């Protein structure tokens, strides 16, 4: 149970990091993730099953079969990036507002994802679980399944968070942080704000695709409906994280997104397991997610009215989301 919550929280935490970048860093309310998340799942599943099929017939060398899980995860990232690029182009070239641009991409990707899945609404991965295969390759075959999964998910999520932390300390990362804060300040230093925003949206959706690839692996299948509700889940995770940990450090802000995601999965698990005591059924989980977001906003609004100690010295980038 606890491993399940942790693994799920970490895998969907990568998605929440993408949501954090678009909603918090860029101030760009991006719904594309509802398309990029399943796109990542579909791309990864398609590659893994194709590799397994050709591996079984001996048409590809064995090293290729061993590399397939990593290629699949990378493909998930790239598929997400392409969805983000589509939204960004629609937004910047046609001046379509962010929400509508996201809806357009998400709607279109439903059909694209069905094509990637070979025309079927889902693709099982029971025998070809890339995450598990990769973990087994690294840790040895004797490690129990849930521990191997946990190790892989932990490694992946922390690696992504660490790389993002590093990125937000580079010139590009600092400019991206400034873009959501004050676009004029970015224009003033001779940077094309549209290109920079495009980079951010592509990165955010790439993370959603990566998360989708891991999720397909963890669930044992990729489904065209994987994306339903992931924006709200990601947002709820980001906000839960902000409630439990206040910091102006970008590193801590990224870490708390993962923390929030684990908390969110824990709450959902609790609602599923013990919700019946309060008359809550699994049908009510979406309502619960919505109420969680509203509650988090309400709490942060209330907390903002009370004086609290200002940010300490030593922070690096800090973003609006860091000041509830």
């Amino acid at each position: 149970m606890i491993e399940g919550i942790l693994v799920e929280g970490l895998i969907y935490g990568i998605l929440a990091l993408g949501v954090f970048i678009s909603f918090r860093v860029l101030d760009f309310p991006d719904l594309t993730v509802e398309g990029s998340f399943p796109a990542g799942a579909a791309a990864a599943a398609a590659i893994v099953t194709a590799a397994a099929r050709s591996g079984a017939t001996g048409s590809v060398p064995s090293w290729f079969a061993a590399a397939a899980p990593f290629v699949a995860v990378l493909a998930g990232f790239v598929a997400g990036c392409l969805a983000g690029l589509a939204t960004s182009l629609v937004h910047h070239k046609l001046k379509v507002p962010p929400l509508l641009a996201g809806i357009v991409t998400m709607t279109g990707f439903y059909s694209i994802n069905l094509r990637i899945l070979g025309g079927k609404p889902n693709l099982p991965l029971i025998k070809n679980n890339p995450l598990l295969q990769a973990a087994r390759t690294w840790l040895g075959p004797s490690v129990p399944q849930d521990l191997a999964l946990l190790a892989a998910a932990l490694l992946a999520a922390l690696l992504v968070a660490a790389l993002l932390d590093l990125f937000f300390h580079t010139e590009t990362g600092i400019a991206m942080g400034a873009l959501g804060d004050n676009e004029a300040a970015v224009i003033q230093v001779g940077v094309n704000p549209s290109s920079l925003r495009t980079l951010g949206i592509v990165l955010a959706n790439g993370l959603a695709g990566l998360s989708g690839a891991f999720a397909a692996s963890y669930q044992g299948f990729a489904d065209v409906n994987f994306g339903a509700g992931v924006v709200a889940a990601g947002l709820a995770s980001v906000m839960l994280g902000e409630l439990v940990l206040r910091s102006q450090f970008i590193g801590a802000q990224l870490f708390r997104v993962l923390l929030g995601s684990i908390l969110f999965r824990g709450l959902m698990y609790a609602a599923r397991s013990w919700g019946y005591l309060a008359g809550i059924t699994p049908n009510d989980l979406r309502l619960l997610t919505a109420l969680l977001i509203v509650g988090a906003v309400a709490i942060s609004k209330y907390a903002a009215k009370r004086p609290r100690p200002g940010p300490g010295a030593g922070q690096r980038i800090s973003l609006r989301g860091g000041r509830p």
Partner: protein
Amino acid sequence: MIRVESAFVAFPQGGGEDRVVLRDLSLVVPRGQTVSIIGSNGAGKSTLLNAIAGTVSLRSGSIVVDGRDCARDPEWIRARYVGRVRQNPLAGTAGEMTIVDNLALASRKGPRRLRMAVTPASAKILAARVAELGMGLEDRLRENVSRLSGGQRQALTLLMAVLSRPSVLLLDEHTAALDPANAELVSSLTKRFIAEFGLTALIVTHDMKRALEQADRVVMMHDGGIVADVSGEEKSRMSVIDLVQLFRSRRGTDYAEDRDLLH
């Protein structure tokens, strides 16, 4: 050097007729000259600066900065040689980022690279630069800019505008929102930076005294055009009263706002 030729700017407004803001305005500012731009509200002073910076586009006419015809370039391209400070101290900085990150952002123009924005060595250089403001900000490098006072923030914005060594500096009433002491401070910093970096500067102001003192030349605007242009000996002989009288005579009409020009 800035060369504005027959700049025509109009904004659409409800009910057919467009509102004309710049009427075939021409202005040549030689390299290294500081020009004060004065005029009543709605004369087109800010629009002239916006047109040079690229925030507002011309209906017709041309703008050449340092030999480059830039009237069709987007704002972010022109920003590579144009620095600007607006009236609102919040406008030029990223408030939720630290002082050192803001300085690092502003220390170079053009595309961003994937290398660390702040290194111990670069932080030392930036601290030395911000120390020149004389506000003790060098000890608060890791604090958020939103925690600075208006005067501190505007001084920082000014430093950020010149740090990357633009050739043109556009200042749009950049001391108007500050208290007198801070306005004085930011004005003297402005003078120092313009001299140090050899900038060509256009300064929009409502303060006639400062307009005369800070610049080599005073340009008076009214109703989208230039109605007076004073420099050299003529300018140095001029008092604030003379300037206000010139303003009245050139503008034709007379109204209560004149009192504001005298303080």
